């Protein structure tokens, strides 16, 4: 039985079979209903539900007995009777607070792009405060700086590109320091933008010799663009030029004709269109629907020295992510994160990114509500995929223990526990297979997957 089912429903099926009755078991049901962080109407209700269901189950450990009791008295009477002698309200409050954080005043760094939406919005919209934290979100100049400041402990936790904590843990481009990802920030939400003059060059096969910008070497953007080019027969190392360029400079460079296009995080893509210098060639969603982009990262040292602060922080982020995943909240979020203190971008641009109704730069208006989406669960299979690409493009040399690294960095188990405590339904397994441009990826066989690519850097 799922943690979040209504324990006062006498018609609930017995343990065999799932809640909706269409699947053989709960596990199967969970796998089939792929939305993992469907938030419940109100926060209080959710915790109350968790507390009440735990209580009910403690009193009647046998499902049959509980159902008999509920049938005879009715759910509302049962709840009323329970509240008579057990203070559900107080218990809920105590439960929601969990352990007191060791450190209340925290600093979290972010890069001003819409990927950081949950981290940013959690400040103005009070998600950190709700979990008893006083968090200062600090805008940072670039990925290398955010890495150094987090390593130097100026930041307690930070917004990083999803592959960065893996790279830091492996000591690529930095000293090896164990880093962790308790939550993914966003999925999808990137795009390939080309300069307006390439309007007729929509086939990647014609892109030989073009110059493209990516935000950072250890980024999903780098891997996705390389993957996309390679699938179209271009070797990203020899046929095109790839440059690491800080996102804001991408638009300026595109205007100045220094680059022909970029695979960049959003609001930058939409900003290029808004300023009339480029058009949306492809949403990253069309390369891999549901790909991770940015992560919420903290060092292992922070987790061991302040476990409760870390748990509260993760809870706040998961909470904010769940809120952001709802389409009806997106407009409100766009307004909250647009001011100079946060992303510092025109509201129209952020709204187009978050609501998914956007100008494509070619004179059309397109709608894709899943253009960017938010799902906190740190799938370890994501990490395995990134490791295969790091190896494919020569960032890692030699043998890689995919599973060990993924499990060390992507904290699926801990997040799962937290999400369950919060009354959310995390997936049962930390691995799932997915398709990138129609090609299946099986996280159990990373080496075979890697060997299947014709275009790769010779190692």
């Amino acid at each position, binding site marked *: 039985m799922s943690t979040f089912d209504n324990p006062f429903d006498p018609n609930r099926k017995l343990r065999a079979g799932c809640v909706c009755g269409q699947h053989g078991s709960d596990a199967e049901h969970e796998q089939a209903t792929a939305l993992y962080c469907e938030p419940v109407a109100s926060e209080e209700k959710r915790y109350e539900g968790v507390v009440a269901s735990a209580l009910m189950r403690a009193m009647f450990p046998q499902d049959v007995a509980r159902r008999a009791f509920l049938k005879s008295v009715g759910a509302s009477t049962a709840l009323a009777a329970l509240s008579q002698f057990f203070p559900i309200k107080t218990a809920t409050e105590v439960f929601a607070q969990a352990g007191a954080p060791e450190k209340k005043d925290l600093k979290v760094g972010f890069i*001003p792009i819409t990927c950081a939406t949950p981290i940013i919005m959690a400040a103005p919209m009070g998600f950190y405060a709700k979990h008893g934290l006083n968090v200062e979100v600090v*805008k*940072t100049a670039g990925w290398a*700086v955010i890495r150094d400041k987090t390593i*130097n402990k100026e930041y307690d936790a930070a917004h990083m590109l999803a592959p960065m904590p893996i790279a830091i843990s492996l000591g690529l481009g930095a000293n090896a320091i164990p880093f962790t990802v308790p939550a993914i920030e966003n999925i999808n939400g990137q795009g390939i933008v080309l300069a307006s003059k390439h309007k007729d060059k929509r086939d990647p096969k014609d892109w030989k010799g073009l110059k493209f910008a990516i935000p950072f070497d250890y980024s999903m953007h780098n891997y996705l663009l390389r993957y996309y080019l390679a699938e179209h027969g271009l070797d990203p190392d020899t046929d095109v030029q790839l440059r690491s360029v800080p996102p804001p400079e991408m638009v300026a460079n595109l205007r100045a004709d220094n680059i022909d296009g970029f695979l960049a995080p959003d609001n930058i893509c939409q900003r290029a269109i808004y300023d009339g210098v480029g058009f949306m060639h492809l949403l990253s969603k069309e390369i891999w629907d549901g790909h991770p982009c940015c992560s919420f990262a903290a060092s292992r040292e922070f987790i061991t020295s302040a476990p409760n602060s870390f748990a509260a922080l993760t809870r706040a982020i998961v909470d904010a992510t769940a809120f952001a995943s709802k389409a009806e909240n997106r407009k409100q979020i766009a307004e909250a994160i647009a001011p*100079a203190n946060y992303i510092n971008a025109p509201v129209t641009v952020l709204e187009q990114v978050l609501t998914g109704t*956007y100008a494509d730069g070619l*004179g059309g208006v397109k709608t894709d509500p899943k253009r960017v989406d938010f799902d906190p669960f740190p799938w370890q299979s994501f990490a395995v995929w990134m490791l295969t690409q790091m190896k494919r493009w020569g960032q890692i040399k030699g043998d890689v223990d995919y599973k060990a690294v993924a499990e060390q960095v992507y904290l699926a188990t801990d997040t799962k526990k937290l999400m369950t405590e919060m009354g959310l339904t995390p997936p049962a397994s930390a691995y799932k297979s997915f398709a990138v441009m129609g090609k299946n990826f099986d996280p159990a066989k990373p080496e075979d997957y890697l060997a299947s690519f014709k275009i790769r850097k010779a190692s």
Partner: protein
Amino acid sequence: MTASLRLRAGLVSLVLLAAFLGIWHLATRSTGTTATMSPEYAKLMGLTATQGKSAMPGPLDVGAKLWEHLKRPFYDNGPNDKGLGIQLGYSIARVGTGYLLAVLVAIPLGFLIGMSPLLSKALDPFIQVLKPISPLAWMPLALYTIKDSSVSAIFVIFICSIWPMLLNTVFGVASVRKEWINVARTLEVGTVRRAFTVILPAAAPTILTGMRISIGIAWLVIVAAEMLVGGTGIGYFVWNEWNNLSITNVIIAILLIGIVGMLLDQILARFTRMVTFPE
């Protein structure tokens, strides 16, 4: 004669300014509507795309925005959005700290080196190698070793402002006229007294010239350092507005950086005049 010269110079300055603003205004006029687009699409696009507004703001935009900033220079909307006054304050404080530390090190050290020909020769190769290093090249090293970005910024200011002061102090002290030192020696003045009453006043103009060069460099460097490190300061403001592609605000920041730099230079120039003596 001087009054009339000053008047004429002022007049020419004004004419140049007016011409500059006029050309700027004409060059950034909007070109009228561009390609037709559906109203629904146009609503999602920026003014540059819909009305052919130049991507470069005109003087009127900048003036209006500047007035907005000047009306409330000290607002504080959280850690990433503070008024220009506060940002400039942070920058000046950083420059001041780094610069004062450099003064405390460079002048006594320069004095010692200048008074001892042996030290002067021995340390010369080190100084010559360290002097031409771009201060920002120190930044990654500083961040890595100091592990604190604001201290790193101060360190970069320190390291960039120390060399002109040190070299000028050495030069000033070493080139005090021999006659004066000989006179002091004839009068049996002690070393310490000689340093403070003979050498210091004689070398002061050179030392202050070094300090004036240093403050200029320090102010140049702080903007770049803050753009790298972020957080606070006028350099961060430039970066933040660049992030938003708000060229208007960037131009305002450039103007203010220029004005503050000029003021700092003028203050040092005044000090230099105070210690200058006719030979």
